[in-house]
């Protein structure tokens, strides 16, 4: 996982959430097992379990006994809502801090964004 020092289970849970949002894991499809996640990321399986448990608690994933973990119906939309709420704090606020430091006005930022197509 990344070198940031953040708890690894949070990084892993976020990564799985992003993979659901971007349709790499579709609703009702199976996600990798705890052992596969631990091996792929070179992390302790207890850490992978903690990430999966968090996603189960959030109703993002559910467990089919004896088979594995699956993405819940409706999980994608719920995650988009959740991540949109964090968008301002995680992306807009750092942008404003940097812009203020450099003396870039909000008008100039809007102009820049106007040139991008997304």
């Amino acid at each position, binding site marked *: 996982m990344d070198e*940031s020092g*953040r708890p*690894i289970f949070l990084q892993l849970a976020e990564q799985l959430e992003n993979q659901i949002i971007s349709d790499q894991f579709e609703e009702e499809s199976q996600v990798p097992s705890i052992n596969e996640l631990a091996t792929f990321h070179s992390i302790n399986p207890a850490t992978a379990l903690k990430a999966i448990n968090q996603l189960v608690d959030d109703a993002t994933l559910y467990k089919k006994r004896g088979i594995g973990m699956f993405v819940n119906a409706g999980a994608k939309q719920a995650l988009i809502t959740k991540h949109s709420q964090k968008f301002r704090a995680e992306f807009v606020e750092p942008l404003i801090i940097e812009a203020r430091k450099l003396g870039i006005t909000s008008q100039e930022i809007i102009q820049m964004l106007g040139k991008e197509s997304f």
Partner: protein
Amino acid sequence: MTKVIEVNNLTKSYRGATAVDSVSLAIEENGIYGLLGRNGAGKTTLMKLVAGHELASTGEISVYGASPFENSAVLANMAFIRESLRYSENYKIGHVLKAAKIAFANWDDAFAQSLVDKFQIPRKRLVRKLSRGQLSAVGVVVGLAARAPITILDEPYIGMDAVARKHFYDILLADYIKHPRTIVLSTHLIDEVADLLEHVFVIDQGRIILDANTEDLRGSAAVIEGSTESVDDAVAGFVILESQTIGTQKRVVAQGLKAEDAARLQSAGLAVKPATLQQLIISQTNMDSSEKVEVA
């Protein structure tokens, strides 16, 4: 969870020098534990005591509920791989594996042979003529193929290059997933193994100064950087583990920040990053607890 190792107020002194000082800790069944500390901190002495290779000066050790010292029933369940193992003069790797097969009940010979190939240990050369890294690989092969319920690895990678060490970590994790057991790994290469460890003990001058779940430690401290004045304002009330200043710029490692604290500091223009496990441990090892500065 079942406790497999319990250490209570353990002290070991050699002619007045205290190598292990009033250590108490508990290790549960099936987990990868890290024993971290600088060279000479007491890691090897503590492991020798737990493995029954040395007798404690005072205190108690219990492994599966019994003292490990000269206790064959306890030692049959344990593989202890030391950084400096000695082998008989005329041994080749094949002889080492044959001896290990007799010593360990769960020995997996096919796995051992595959590891010899993976680490490219020369089969025809005498073990005493192997390079330092190859000799360490011999220890790793024995330690892993033993599949002992308690596996203690004391800096098993000395002399291995970065590639061989990465092999070792990958194989250790894969084999632990297939055959869960209690693994205690001592190391000073904290960053390399941090992600593998479920729980860490940090030993410094013979004392355990940190005993915590690895994931709980991550994110428990932050590195904060900015102008000296704003940093001093921002960290008032937090425990400061480490502090450095250059010109008008200051960087501190602070403990106990919550997510909302970090957000508040960031909007005040400070750079806030979670401290890595290595940063956290180094900052704790550098100072005695009595020297920790509580900022008013």
